[in-house]
C-alpha cells in the first residue's frame, strides 16, 4: 500500500483535462448565476457545481483518490460541521425574517 502511494504519478495530460473540466464547471456556475431562475433553485444548482468542483480538485490535484480511506474521511469533517452549523442557524433566520416582516 505504502509503496503504491509513493509511486503514483498522474500525467500532465490528466491535469490539463482536469483543468478543462474545472473551467467548464466554472462556466456552468456562471451561467446559473445569471440565469433568471428561482433563488432556491439557483442556490441548489450552485451548491451542486461547487461540490463537483471541489471533489475534482481534491481527488485529482490534491491526490486524495490515491490516499487511504481514513485520510479521505478526515477531509469530510469541515463539510459535516458546516452542515451542522447551517442546520443550527438556518431555522433562526426563518424566525427573524418573519419577525422583520411583522414589524414592518
Amino acid at each position, binding site marked *: 500500500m505504502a509503496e503504491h502511494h509513493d509511486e503514483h504519478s498522474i500525467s500532465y495530460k490528466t491535469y490539463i483535462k482536469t483543468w478543462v473540466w474545472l473551467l467548464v464547471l*466554472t462556466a456552468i456556475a456562471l451561467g446559473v448565476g445569471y440565469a433568471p431562475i428561482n433563488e432556491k433553485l439557483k442556490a441548489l444548482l450552485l451548491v451542486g457545481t461547487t461540490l463537483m468542483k471541489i471533489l475534482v480538485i481534491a481527488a485529482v490535484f490534491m491526490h486524495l483518490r490515491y490516499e487511504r480511506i481514513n485520510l479521505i474521511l478526515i*477531509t469530510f469533517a469541515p463539510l459535516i460541521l458546516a452542515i451542522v452549523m447551517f442546520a443550527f442557524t438556518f431555522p433562526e433566520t426563518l424566525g427573524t425574517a418573519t419577525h422583520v416582516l411583522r414589524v414592518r
Partner: protein
Amino acid sequence: MDSSIAEQQRILASDWGGGRSPFGTSWSKFMMWIFIVSDALTFAAFLIAYGFMRSISPEWPKQTEVFNMVLITFMTFDLISSSAVMAMAVAAARASNPKRAVQFLALTIVGGLIFLGCQAFEWTHFIEEGATLTHNPWGVPQFAASFFVITGFHGFHVFSGVTILAIVAIRAAMGKYSADGVENAGLYWHFVDVVWVFVFAFYYLL
C-alpha cells in the same frame, strides 16, 4: 495466554503497532492535511455567518451590478489555472525533474501575484465607492463587512501561499529540494483555490 500473545502480535503487525504510518502519508503531509481541515472550518464558519446575515437581511445588493464580474471571472480562471500548473509542478518534482518543477512553481507564483493584483484593484475600487466595514452606499452594512472579511481572509491566504511557494521554488532552484515539500506547498495552494470556488459561487453568484 496463547491467545493474548497472538493478539499482541496481531496489533504489533498492524498499522497501529508503531513504526508505521497509519494514514499512509509522511508526517508532514498528514500535518498539512490537518491544518487544511482546521482552516476549512474557519472558512466554513465565515460562509455560514455570511449566509445567516444575508438571510436575516430584508434585502441584499445585486452583486453583479456592484462588482466587475469580468474581473471576478478572470480571477477565478487565473486561480484554477495556477492550481493546475501547481499540480504539474508536484508531478515534475515527483519525477525528479527539479528544473521543470521550478519553472512550474514560478508560473504558479505569477498566477498568485496576478490574483493579488486584481484583488488590490477590486478593493481600491470598492473603498473609493464608499464601502467600509460598517457602512456602504448600498444600504446593507453586512454586505461590505462580509466582503472585506471573507475576501480579505482569502487574499491573505493567497499572499501566504505565494510566500510559501517562493520559498519552496528558491530552495528547489538551490538544489535543496524534496518532492514532499513541493507536494505539501501544493496541497495548501489547492486549498486556497477550493476556498475561492466557494466564495465565487456563494458571495458573487448567488
